[in-house]
């Protein structure tokens, strides 16, 4: 079923640590996610001014993609399949706060646009010019079996050559990302068991 399909590379980003292909590549304790994500951006010498307009969820997804979509990893037609538990609630709460009081009512389009979980997919698509299949799903926890099936189906049905996929969650000042690139190259087989193992590592 998953003949010749591999997890070519993967990364794990939690509140203060980044692990890339099994190795710790960054550690920094920051007061909040916003400053942590900014330090990551600086540390990896990323140059992309639009980054600073993004909400924390989009920033997290964007940084994960930056680490994985290197020139040597990039192929044509990379699909994007992400999921999380909190959708865009972190930003939804901010928009709601701005409209709770009719006497003090200040909704902002710059915030409202980020009240969708798939905006990060749009940001990555723009950055890497991916005019490809994309979908955002919500689960209580990372659902490796579903991800495995859906990622496979995209490649099997010739909808994509490779898939950048995984979990990207921001909620109440915590962040948790597990992103990986599924392709025909690599050493780790793309199986549900391996996805669970890498997520829990």
């Amino acid at each position, binding site marked *: 079923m998953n003949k010749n399909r591999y997890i070519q590379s993967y990364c794990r980003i939690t509140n203060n640590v980044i692990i890339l292909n099994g190795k710790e590549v960054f550690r920094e304790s920051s007061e909040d996610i916003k400053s942590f994500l900014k330090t990551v951006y600086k540390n990896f010498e990323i140059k992309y001014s639009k980054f600073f307009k993004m909400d924390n969820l989009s920033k997290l997804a964007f940084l994960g993609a930056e680490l994985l979509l290197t020139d040597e990893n990039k192929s044509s037609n990379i699909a994007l399949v992400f999921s999380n538990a909190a*959708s865009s609630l972190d930003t939804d709460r901010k928009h709601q706060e701005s409209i709770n009081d009719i006497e003090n009512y200040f909704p902002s389009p710059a915030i409202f646009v980020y009240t969708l979980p798939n905006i990060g997919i749009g940001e990555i698509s723009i950055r890497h010019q991916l005019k490809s299949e994309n979908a955002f799903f919500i689960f209580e926890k990372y659902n490796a079996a579903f991800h495995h099936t859906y990622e496979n189906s995209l490649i099997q049905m010739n909808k994509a050559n490779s898939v950048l996929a995984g979990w990207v969650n921001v909620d109440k000042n915590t962040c948790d990302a597990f992103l990986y690139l599924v392709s025909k190259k690599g050493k780790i087989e793309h199986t549900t068991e391996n996805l669970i193992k890498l997520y829990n590592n």
Partner: protein
Amino acid sequence: MQQSYITYHHIISSLGFDSKSNFEQLKKSKSGIKKYQRENGDEYYSSIIDKEKVDKLFSEIGTIDKYTTLEKMMLLSVNAILKKSNLNIGDRTGLILATTKGNVDVLSTKSKFYKDKSRSYLFELGSQISSFFNFKSKAIVVSNACVSGILAVAVADRLIKSKMYDDVVIVSGDLVTEFILSGFTSFQAISSTPCKPFSKNRRGITIGEAVASVLVSSTKKESAVEVIGTASCNDANHISGPSRTGEGLYLAVESALKEAQVLIDDVDYISAHGTATNFNDEMEAIAFSRLGMSEIPLNSLKGYYGHTLGASGLLETIIGIESLNQNTLIASHGFDELGVSKSINVIKSTTKKPLNIFLKTASGFGGCNTAVLFKKVINK
């Protein structure tokens, strides 16, 4: 490869509490859009569901106070699908829930569910539906802006083709909330009159609400439609505005046609997105023109329902299925004079015509575009 079919469907909207009555209203050119008032007194146009009727109907299957407004409507709709289809929920039955904002109204201090901090999470909305009917697996929630409802059909088709499920129930829904109205108003995207998709005098979106459900099955039956091609492509251009060249929509339709192995001439009808914003309608006209689809009869159903966000793709798919079954092209409500730069064939009056294949498209924030092709099942 395993084929998939839409065998049953159901709608709750301002125009009725089942698919049949909705389609009858459209045939009579009846729009569900009316004038309402915001909390601050501002008037706006919208298409809103009768909540007293929702509670009355829901009291026959559950306890009214235990569920949010959206949950009650979704439960009613899934209940109708399960009853009509006699579906036996087993290990091979999946549930997909498609929504843009789900229970976002509970974030407001005015909501009686405000203190229930779990209720705003979309997986919790999924759990409320799956546990009510004892689905064996957890709901798969699709939340991909305004393509959610139609993308869910593509996902169901792919999961059936992957042999994960034999049957998938999809329920999609979104509400008109202060959250949404305030956001789109801040974008200056809301029309001061009922929306007029593809018209010269269009002034923006009318927001609406709806719940729509379908059963996608690996077993076909009479009056079903087959899902023959699906695709979803990003514009890679802008997060809150459509591409000027319609690139993502163009690529999505092209990919769906390729999978379906049908020619452009085989497509009898296009159910477009048509939100009635300047940029969206122009983008669609450019994409369809580039695809060589300018002559194919096309409508937007937003003039009847408004833009029902994540529900719109599935709601409009169901109307398309009824169009095929009744060989009837529905007029694009609110349309007068063509107001896009490329020629497209907007349906001006409801007419009878033999129909076999239709294309449903949707586009949304984040640059997403989805296209799905459906074909009538003719065997008896």
